[in-house]
Each structure stands twice: as C-alpha cells, then as structure tokens.
C-alpha cells in the first residue's frame, strides 16, 4: 500500500494549500510506514515538480497531455483513480479546493472508498480504526467520521495543517492513464481570472465588510486596508445581495467558508449565519460602532467605533509599522 496525493496546480504552480496537503499526506504515510506518491496533471515544469520532494514526496506521476491541460472533472477523476490502482494506494489525499470538491466524491465511487471531505486534522488510527475530524453544521461543530472501507479518500481543508519541509528529493515519472471519450463531455469555454486580487479561499488574511459600510462607494478604504495587508476581500450576504460586491466575496453559511489566520470584520453584526463561515479563523478582529454587536463575543480583538474613522487610522498605523519593520 501507499498514500497518493493529488497535487493540483494553478497555471503550472503549486499553491500553499497543496504543500499543506502534501505535508499532511506525508505524515499519514509515515504513520502507516509507507511511501508517498504524488500525481500531477497538466503542464507543470520539472523544477516545480521537483519541489514536491521538499515536502516528502518520493515519486511524482506526471500526466502531461494536451487533452488534460485544463481541469476536466470526470477525466481527472479517472486518471487519479487509475494512479491509485497502479500504486496500490489505499489512501488518496486531495486539497478541499473547488476542484477537489468535484473530484473527491467521484474518486470515492470509483475506488469504493469512504470519503472524508474537509478534514481538519490527522486521522486518528487508534485501535485499527480510521477516524477523521471534519467541519460540520457550517463550522458550528466538528464531526468525527469513521471510514470503514479499505480504501479512503480524504480532502483537507486549507489552512488546517502546517507545512513540513524535509530534506528529500523526488523522482518524476511520466504516467499515461486510460480515459474514455465520455470523460470529456464537459468542455471549458472560458476561464476568467481576477488576476490582481488575492483569492479568498487561499488567503492568510481576509478583510470583510458588511452593511455598516453603507454603500459600494465606501469600499475604497476596505480595498486599501486589504492591499496594505496583502489580504483578500470578503463581505456579508446582504452586501452581495445588494450588488455592492460580487457573490464570490460572500462568506458565511450560504457563501464561502474561510479559515484564514486573520479575519477582520468591519461593519458586520455577526449574525449566526455569517459566523458559521468564518468562526474557524485563527484570529478575529471586529470593528463595529455598536458595543453590543454579537460579533464581539467571538472576536479576539475589537474596536468599538465608526469604521469611517477607525479604518483610515488603522491603514495609517499598518503603513507606519511596515515602514519601521
């Protein structure tokens, strides 16, 4: 047996969340005295592939095929399942990215494997069992799920496992997997990237604005704050419903769930549905003019004050700190 990690790339590069998932898979392989094999699909150069060795990957199966250049859910699932079979991998690890969410259930069915989606810590293998902790109830709780099948698929929540560097190298091997024509029914027409911004699900720091900001014209200072912090932008649901900000920035129970190192909420009351998607952030800062806003109850740091006065001062303070650091 071995552990297989799918190392998803974004335009030929591996992101931080992938190194987290590789480190996670490496630890699982160590705990099971077995080796770690990666599968990379798409156009990734030799140097980037080799960088996986730094996190303990022993071998990379590299699938470079014009037809598989861009993500095709069905075809990628076929290739990853084929790799799992070839390597006799009992455990397949993915990052719980948007693509990972499409792949994990399909791979699970192909391998007749139990799927633990959105794992937040290492599996507990005490007593021969295999238990995985995952978020449930939209971040209001965790569920401990036991996988009872021989084969297992685990997708790891970004920002929940530390990156571990090791001093090792990796072997890159070309891998050709059978795909069916029916795997390519869904076709990409267009990929639209909002290139200049930090992507919300990947961000270490998130700056989020709510209805307290009164209107879209007031987002300039929010964008500037995000800019000085290298943060991604987010918002509450009413803000995206009103069209002040795009839906892709809406966080919470019915939006994106995020778990950054720092979440700064400005003019957001902290309704239970909003908290559901952000409460697993490591540190929460709340800026609200109402001292009784529910958000303060789950915050680490709070400023009671008018955002229009506090935020410019905060930006200035961060700039001064950066200049002196």
């Amino acid at each position, binding site marked *: 047996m071995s552990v297989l990690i799918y190392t998803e790339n*974004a335009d030929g590069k591996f*992101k931080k969340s992938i190194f987290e998932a590789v480190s996670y898979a490496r630890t699982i392989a160590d705990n099971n005295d077995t080796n770690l094999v990666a599968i990379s699909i798409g156009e990734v150069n030799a140097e980037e592939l080799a960088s996986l060795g730094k996190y303990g990957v022993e071998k990379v199966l590299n699938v470079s095929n014009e037809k598989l250049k861009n*993500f095709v*859910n*069905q075809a990628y699932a076929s290739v990853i399942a084929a790799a799992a079979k070839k390597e006799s991998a009992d455990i397949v690890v993915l990052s719980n990215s*948007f693509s990972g969410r*499409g*792949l*994990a*259930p399909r791979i*699970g*069915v192909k391998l007749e494997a*139990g*799927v*633990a*989606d*959105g794992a937040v810590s290492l599996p507990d293998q005490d007593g021969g069992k295999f238990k995985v*902790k995952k978020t*449930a*109830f*939209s971040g209001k*709780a965790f*569920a*401990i799920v*036991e*996988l009872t099948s021989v084969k297992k698929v685990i997708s790891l929540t970004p920002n929940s496992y530390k990156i571990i560097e090791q001093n090792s190298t990796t072997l890159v091997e070309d891998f050709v997997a059978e795909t069916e024509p029916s795997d390519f*029914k*869904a*076709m*990409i*027409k*267009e*990929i*639209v990237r*909002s290139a200049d911004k930090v*992507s*919300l*699900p*990947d961000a270490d720091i998130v700056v989020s604005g709510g209805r307290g900001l009164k209107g879209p014209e007031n987002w300039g200072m929010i964008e500037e704050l995000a800019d000085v*912090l290298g943060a991604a932008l987010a918002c509450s649901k009413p803000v995206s419903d009103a069209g002040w900000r795009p*839906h*892709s920035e809406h966080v919470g129970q*019915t*939006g994106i769930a995020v778990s950054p190192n*720092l979440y700064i909420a400005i003019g957001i009351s902290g309704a*239970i*549905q909003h908290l*559901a998607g952000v409460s697993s952030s490591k*540190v929460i*800062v709340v800026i609200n003019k109402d001292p009784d806003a529910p958000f*303060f*109850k*789950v*915050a680490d*740091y709070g*400023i009671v*004050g008018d955002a229009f006065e506090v935020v410019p*001062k*905060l930006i200035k*303070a961060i700039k001064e700190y950066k200049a002196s650091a």
Partner: protein
Amino acid sequence: MKILVCISNVPDTTTKITFTDNNTQFNTNGVQFILNPYDEIALARAIELTDGGIGSVTVINVGEVNTEATIRKALAIGAADAVRINAKPHDAWFVAFQIAQYIKTNPFDLVLTGRESIDYNGSKVAGMLGELLGLPSVSIIKKLDLEGDHAIVEREIEGGKEVLTIPLPFVAGTAEGVAEPKIPNMRGIMSARTKPLSVIEPVEVKTFSEVISFETPAPRGQVKIIPATDPGQLVALLHTEAKII
C-alpha cells in the same frame, strides 16, 4: 424537459448546535428543520427553466416520514411531484446510491442538487451521482443556462470562474447566483397538499462511513477591546501577541 432536484431536510440556519448522549447525537430538541437553502436555489432555477409548460420538476428526498413537511414545501414552491425514499440518510454514498437507482429507471434531462447540505457540508452527493450514473458533474455552479441540448454553466475556481458547455443530461450542485429562492404563494400551498408524493423503499447498499461523535469548537478567550482613537495598539498586538503581521 424533466428536471430532478435532490432536496435535504436540515436544521434551520439559526439553530444553536448542541449534542446529547456524550456528544454522539445531534440534539434535535426544539430544532426546526427546513429545506436546505442551496436546494431552494436549485429548485428555483429548475422551476424557471421549465416555466411555461416546457417541462416539469420532480423533487426527491432520502429520508424518513418526518421530512414530508419539507417535501410539501418544495411542492408548494412549484415542483410537480415528489419522491421520498424511505430511509435514514446514512451518508452521502447511501443517499447518492438510492437516488441513482431511482434515476436509472426514471431518467431525467438534468439533475440538480445544492452545493452542500448545511448540516454535514459534504458537497459529495452531486459528484457521486455523476459517477454512479456515468454523467458529467459540476459540484459548485454559480450560473446555469440551457441552450438546446446542452447547458452553459459557470463554476467557481479560486480567484475566478470557469465557463463550461455540457451536454444534457448531467448533474450539478447549485450555489448562490444561480437563482433567487422562491417563496410559495397561497395557491402553491393549497395545491401542494394534493400533488403526488410517492414513497419507495430503499435498496440494499453497503456503507463506507459512520459519524461516531461530534465536537464543538473551543470557545475563544475574552475579546480585547482597543480604543478607537489608537488602532496602532491593534497593529502592535497582531505583531507581538497574535504573531500574524
């Protein structure tokens, strides 16, 4: 045009989540159950796409008899008929397997789910259904339009979006942006009582996962309030104490 919408019965979004029996059971005491908010979006879009008599919407749920209020709500919103597979929804695999069995003998042009159920947040049923039926699946879509025998869908990706063309039939999980949820009107509520709801028994299937127990997140310490006049103190704390910047 026949569309199947998979619906789940979940605790209301305002529910305070607690557990009983040594954290092994979700405490349903006093909890109100609702139609999963993402499934409301799927249902609304399905109704729009079949509007004007060009098709019909069926809803399906894997659940015990107590989910029927939620099923009736979906009928009141505008589904033509409903199917309940009479079983406890053990896990996503169990649910997908049952629904796939049903679809194999009752084909649809399009199968919609929500992007995830707000209780177990798996985002799994759509992908599993796709694989079990040998159909394309897109787990999280933001937009869905039909053009003849295929659909144009938008899928979210980190830092952008992807536009896909997919021939019918396929499976997709809807997220915000696909449609605005519809509120049932009086006529809908009245007619829902008499719309067909068929109950079928589950098929035998092995299961691969088991929820053993639950945990609630560790409470945060007391919030530190920083004077509004001096946000510099916050920057200092984020550096020295939280070690983030």
